[in-house]
């Protein structure tokens, strides 16, 4: 009956509203749709046709089937914190929001797994089991608001992924609604290695282009007995990066090994969680070691020694959980902190072999000089995952374009040294064309072949992840012309 309140002539909207059984579970007025015209990547915007909020897998399947039958483009959305535009409705999609499917369905501590709905917030999982001494390892900085469904789609990483791996290393099972509305379950009960191609592995990190995840079985871990965190201040960036290599070479596997440069420090110190870092240092390292308590002291000593050998100005160990917490809050809010020193900023996400760190940081500096834009670096140094943050002011004509170009050049540098164009934020819309920095036509086709196996009609999240064919021809013509000059 309530469906009567849906006031529109659009029959599709009426039908979609029927599927979700309540007018409160669908948005279709323009003013309501505006907040769904982009995600954490704000440079491309487009209004969706509608936003629907299913309450269970069955509703998701019906919605998808309806879209498929009626050739309506659609996509899934979690918390909308994605940084590459994966949830932007480029084609006026029907957005299937999973935020109301947010239950924790099962926790099996003895067998070390938990089952969640896709809209369940990452940090809530750890919070629900920490009193019993367990946690969920992947910890993106956005963990207090991003969904585990979104984490699966992006194969999200985080500071502690150096030792414990990224999302894909923790996914044991998925229930997925395929683009034709069929429901499949992979890796039931978290049983590993079920025979067949590793669809779990392919779906994780597929950026919502192969299916909609409606249930997730994740591995949970025992909280380490002890943790110690070290903060080291360096007067030279190179010394900081050398220290990173030295620590790894000692055979230490830190739980986290993070770096911030001077500009980044300026920002975090002006934002909500300052911890009193000196403003005149060039780089800091935040290093955490965890594990059996008896073994940690020795590793911390080695780390301090490494830092001292690399001319550290000051190196200290967090004295208690409160101090450790402050250091991490300061680091984890680093992106947002840029807002305090620049009206706009663009986050990049390249990966390089760790040993190339000094060279790449140098080249990023040159890019910064070339465009006259400041670039802050705040990143997962241990696994070579850089986040250059290009600071700009969109009000100045041309500056947005310059920032975009500078960001792209940073990625080119990463690709040049044998790295990758994204370590955890995904390709989305943002880095579609940059895929060509790392993949040949054949390699891209091998991937679109996989997409076709799942998503033949391309109604689900089209126009993401892969360079558009037209554009790739243009790029080729351009490079040919350039080559012939």
């Amino acid at each position: 009956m309530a469906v009567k309140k849906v006031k529109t002539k659009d029959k599709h909207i009426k039908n979609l509203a029927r599927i979700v059984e309540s007018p409160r579970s669908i948005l279709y007025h323009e003013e309501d749709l505006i907040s769904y015209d982009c995600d954490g990547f704000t440079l491309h915007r487009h209004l969706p046709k509608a936003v629907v909020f299913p309450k269970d897998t069955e509703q998701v399947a019906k919605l998808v089937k309806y879209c498929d039958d009626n050739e309506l483009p659609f996509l899934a959305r979690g918390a909308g914190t994605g940084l590459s535009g994966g949830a932007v409705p480029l084609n006026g999609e029907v957005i299937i929001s999973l935020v109301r499917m947010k239950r924790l369905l099962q926790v099996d501590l003895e067998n070390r797994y938990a089952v969640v709905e896709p809209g369940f917030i990452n940090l809530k999982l750890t919070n629900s089991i920490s009193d019993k001494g367990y946690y969920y390892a992947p910890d993106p900085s956005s963990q207090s608001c991003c969904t585990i469904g979104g984490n699966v789609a992006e194969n999200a990483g985080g500071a502690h992924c150096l030792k414990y791996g990224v999302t894909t290393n923790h996914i044991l099972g998925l229930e997925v609604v395929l683009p034709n509305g069929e429901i499949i379950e992979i890796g039931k009960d978290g049983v590993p290695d079920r025979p067949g191609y590793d669809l779990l592995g392919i779906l994780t990190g597929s950026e919502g282009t192969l299916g909609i995840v409606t249930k997730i079985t994740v591995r949970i871990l025992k909280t380490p007995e002890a943790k110690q965190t070290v903060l080291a201040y360096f007067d030279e960036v190179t010394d900081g990066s050398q220290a990173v290599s030295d620590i790894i070479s000692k055979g230490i596997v830190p739980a986290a090994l993070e770096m911030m440069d001077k500009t980044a420090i300026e920002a975090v110190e002006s934002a909500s969680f300052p911890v009193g870092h000196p403003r005149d240092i060039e780089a800091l390292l935040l290093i955490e070691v965890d594990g059996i308590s008896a073994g940690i002291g020795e590793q911390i000593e080695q780390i301090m020694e490494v830092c001292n050998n690399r001319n550290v100005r000051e190196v200290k160990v967090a004295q208690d959980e409160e101090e450790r917490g402050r250091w991490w809050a300061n680091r984890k809010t680093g992106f947002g902190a840029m807002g305090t020193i620049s009206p706009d900023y663009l986050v990049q996400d390249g990966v390089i072999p760790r040993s190339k760190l000094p060279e790449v940081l140098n080249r990023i500096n040159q890019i910064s000089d070339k465009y006259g834009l400041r670039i802050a670096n705040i990143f997962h140094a241990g696994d070579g995952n850089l986040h250059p943050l290009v600071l700009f002011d969109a009000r100045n004509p041309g500056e947005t374009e310059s920032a975009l170009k500078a960001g792209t050049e940073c990625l080119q540098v990463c690709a040049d040294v044998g790295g990758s164009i994204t370590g955890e934020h995904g390709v989305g819309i943002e880095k579609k064309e940059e895929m060509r920095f790392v993949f040949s036509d054949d390699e891209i086709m091998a991937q679109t072949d996989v997409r076709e196996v799942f998503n033949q009609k391309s109604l689900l999240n089209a126009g993401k992840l892969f360079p558009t064919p037209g554009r790739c021809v243009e790029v080729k013509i351009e490079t040919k012309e350039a080559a012939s000059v």
Partner: protein
Amino acid sequence: MIVADILTDLKSLIPEGQVKEEERQNHSLGNRGQVTVYPKSEAEIASILKYANENGKNISVMGGGTKRGYGGLVETADILLSLSDYKGIIEHTVGDMTLTVRPGTTFKEIQDYLAEHDQKVSLDPAWPEYATIGGIIAANESGPKRLGYGSARDVVIGMKVVYPNGTIIRTGAKVVKNVAGYDMNKLFIGSMGTLGVVSEVTVKLRPVPKHESLVLLSFPKGNMEEIRSFVIDLLDAPMEPTSLELLSPALSNRLINRAHYTLAISFEDVEKSVHYQENFINNSEHNAEVSILRQKETQAFWDEFYTIRPNGTELITNNETEAALKIGIVNLDVLKVIKEAHVLQDANNLVIQAHGGLGHGLCQVILKGASDDVVAAIKQLRYFVVQLGGYVTITHLPLSLRQQIDVWGEQPSYFFLLKQMKSKIDPNNVLNHKRFVGGI
């Protein structure tokens, strides 16, 4: 006639010395080729695949041959592509802890080389002297230390793969974190060589642990409840075992001369931490017989352990049938599976040696005896495991028996996706035809 044609064709593609006509007409494990080729470069692999693809020939792919008895319904393909001569280390970046190798490199060659740098690949497959890295990855093989270090899918960061049409693609990259495009590495890990030939593998490395010990706890009463509660306490404590493997009495007897259920618990860390964890076990409540192996002694135990499974390179000379199974189950149900394997031993007049990881849910079961009895026991065990929500795949069995009992068990409900994947990539069924699930 046909063989002669293939020989001639192949010799026009790669040097003659690398092409051999198979002398033996039959192999009890099957997966043979009329002609065997030993490519020495990626280009040669590509040209062989392209030739087969365009001329309606099929290819069986082999590394060291330890898994010859794993899947496959045909005695012979047209061509056996052996990667045993395509080996060696391509690049080792010590500081980045990444290694790129050719697929035919044996696991032992890799570990021996890395040991000089205090690094290792954190996998522990069977028969390291023979098993090649390509085969280990294609079969997604793991051992007890999967608990601590994960499996091939956690270790492989990049590959090069030759597609059936001869196209060479790269997947992943030489960096430890990467989400550019689909995670294509995963498609080939565990695909049993049915999608492409892996021509290069990049793995991330780990430091060799500074100290290592192995605690062996044998439970004379064989009371599963007692073992279970010990294990639950251990798992709930902040200890960090890298293996927590339950050995069946028969296997324990073979390895350490104690015919009891035995837990093999490894600790690998700095010395203080390892001792602390050993003490934790010594001080915890149990009625088990305990022995502790340290450093080199542990290696001797594991060296022996990795040779218990049937090895496809050896020909069986007596009338016994040997089989091996990989079983996946919810972690703690490993207890039930290992017990059932033990019970089935006497019920079927067989030797059954079994082990399973209580922290990761995978078991290996080795059966020896008359072929009818082996097949009967596999069926009984499969029934038992499937009831518990798990699966059984047969990782070693003579061809004639593989034609009688399905190696892969029931097809998953999403089988159509697997099939479409195969037909997209290998539409002519060139590679390892019928080697995998559902006759893929």
